[in-house]
């Protein structure tokens, strides 16, 4: 009876140590980095007011996250950059294209751990709706990532 108890306690101790070692494994941590549904995301100011387009796109594409007004209230932070080049005379005359060239890249990081959990970049040579299109592309891919 006593021997059985000893064996059981040893087994429990071993299982605990294995579980603790698994928790320290960086591979395990890396796969656990996902944006859960309903998390609060703070959208940091971006050049050319791209953050406002992102906020609109998140609502339009029904991304399952809440937009936080301040960084302190948020679980995640979205930072990024965007660049727009309007079609010049040469592009209009030679290429016959009136649409702008859009480039944007966004990164979502966990505020507590400081780890980047998601990133996406978009490039549109002839964007029909300018910044709106690139923001919606970012939001769409963010939604796909959350719902994966």
């Amino acid at each position, binding site marked *: 009876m006593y021997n059985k*108890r000893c064996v059981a306690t040893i087994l429990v101790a071993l299982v605990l*140590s294995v579980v603790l070692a698994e928790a320290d494994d960086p591979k395990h941590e890396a796969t656990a980095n996902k944006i859960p549904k309903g998390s609060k995301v703070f959208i940091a100011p971006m*050049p050319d007011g791209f953050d406002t387009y992102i906020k609109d796109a998140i609502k339009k594409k029904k991304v399952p996250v809440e937009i936080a007004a301040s960084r302190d209230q948020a679980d995640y932070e979205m930072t990024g950059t965007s660049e727009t080049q309007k079609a010049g005379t040469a592009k209009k005359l030679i290429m016959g294209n009136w649409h702008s060239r859009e480039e944007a*890249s966004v990164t979502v*990081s966990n505020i507590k751990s400081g*780890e980047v959990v998601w990133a996406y*970049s978009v490039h549109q040579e002839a964007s029909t709706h300018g910044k709106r299109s690139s923001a919606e592309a970012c939001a769409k891919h963010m939604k796909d990532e959350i719902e994966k």
Partner: protein
Amino acid sequence: MQSKIRVVVPLLLATLIVSFSCSSLLALAQTSSENKPNQDQSKSDPAPSSDLKPTASDEGQLATVNNAKIPAYAKVYVAPMSGGFENYLIAGLRNKKVPLTVVVDRAKAEYEISGVSESDKAGWAKMLFMGSQQSNELASIKVSDLRTGAIVFGYSVHKGNSVRGKQSAGEACAKHIKQIVVD
């Protein structure tokens, strides 16, 4: 009852000590095996100029010092770069599935990626004579070990007609970083 506790407690302590020592020994063995190729390389290469090894890439130039490798899931900080190129690089690392953990705090990182990038939009002459409206992208990055301060990797990319602009340059850099990450 007290005699039982006297027997069980040392037994438990002994098993915990044994399991922890086993795990630390395993970790030591892993780190030594990761560092072995570097040491062997430094022994076999007497000339310091042979440390830089370019790859067979037509777009960029890559250099690794002493065949240095970055362990998988190492924490990497991407420093701000001109034109927000750090965002494109992080997106490239994710897109190319590079097994690294990107952190936003430099103090928490083991490695740092820094660099420069430049974008030249197609002018009227390029559109007229070449029929191309794609941009000219230049980027150069270096990866440094924050503990030792040594630069372990460098890569530069030049795309005369970049179909996806900065995104292409970021992904090219990420693809080549993946080459030096060991699982």
